[in-house]
């Protein structure tokens, strides 16, 4: 007695289902292989591309720009850039958003002067960045960085204290009192030494 071969029409069962799965896996493998090969060749192309010598920013260890102003005032940041390379160098300062510990972020409308400068070898140029402090800016200590755009890594930390005019006056009075106290104590110690 002969028995006919049963051919199921369900895609997930039987020999054709297994072949379909194998075919799907093989197609996926080939597609992924082609994609990775292309990516490899692109990266190889990038590695073989001509080098463009660049510039690195090296700030002094303790370099940090600090300033304070009341809301509505203007903060001025000054930074000297010295070109230690053997050819001209272009400098374009730009400030990152400044963030306070409370979470307030200040996108300062900074006015850099010059906006972009060409420095000859050995030249030192002072870059001035003016920051108008908005009247509605909450008081606080805003931190960010001054970037010299296009230079690999390296930035100069910036801290701007936004304090009310009265707080600034109290702070300067306290400073003056501290200085007077220090001077008088020095005088006293000198007098004691004499006696």
């Amino acid at each position, binding site marked *: 007695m002969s028995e006919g071969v049963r051919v199921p029409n369900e895609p997930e069962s039987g020999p054709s289902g297994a072949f379909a799965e194998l075919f799907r896996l093989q197609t996926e493998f080939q597609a992924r292989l082609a994609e990775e090969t292309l990516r490899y060749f692109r990266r*190889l192309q990038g590695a073989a591309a001509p*080098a*463009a*010598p660049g510039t690195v920013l090296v700030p*002094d260890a303790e370099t940090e720009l600090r300033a304070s*102003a009341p809301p509505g005032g203007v903060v001025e940041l000054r930074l*000297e850039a010295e070109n230690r*390379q053997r050819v*001209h160098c272009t*400098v374009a300062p730009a400030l990152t958003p400044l963030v306070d510990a409370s979470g307030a972020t200040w996108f300062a409308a900074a006015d850099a002067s010059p906006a972009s400068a060409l420095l000859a070898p050995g030249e030192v140029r002072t870059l001035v960045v003016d920051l108008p402090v908005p009247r509605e800016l909450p008081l606080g200590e805003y931190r960010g960085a001054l970037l010299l755009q296009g230079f690999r890594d390296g930035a100069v930390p910036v801290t701007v204290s936004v304090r009310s005019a009265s707080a600034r006056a109290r702070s300067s009075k306290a400073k003056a009192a501290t200085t007077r106290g220090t001077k008088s104590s020095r005088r006293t110690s000198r007098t004691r030494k004499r006696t």
Partner: protein
Amino acid sequence: MTAGPDRVRLVDAPDESGRTTATLLASLAARLATLLAISGSDAIGSLTAGFAALGREVGKTAPGARLRSALETGRPGANGNALWSALRIEEWASSLPPSPVLDQLRNDVALLLADDLEETLELLPIPGAAAGARGSAEPEAATFLDFAVGFWWFCREVASTVEALAEPTLEHESVRPAPASETAPEGSLLR
């Protein structure tokens, strides 16, 4: 209140040959030579990816972030993203190594100001260095907004640099004295 003037030094990258007239000239010559070996699509794609990479950096600054945010919330951002997606520009530019467009611009400008260019030109051909590991980094997604911000910064720098190049010899007087000549000027405009 004024903060004290702190100083930063601008130096050569430690793992590179440094910026000299010879290395900058070699880099420019190699770039031109490479154009003969790659397709136009690859060249433009690399430049597009380069502007997008610059835009990602500029987007970290306050003016860049403001510009990006403004574009993103308006119609130009939405339409730009739609175009880049439908025409698969993002996919194309993201697959190519980004050209260091700002470095290249600054290096070419430095060549224009080099006082030893003529002597260095006589040394051609100068073998150029390859980008190496720096150029083979995994390319990041090049979006429309990154490209727009990067291209804006690049154009801004081109304008200010060209003005700075012309500044030392720019004539600031808007009136030129009449040439020393005995005969009066004649012409149809002077009737």
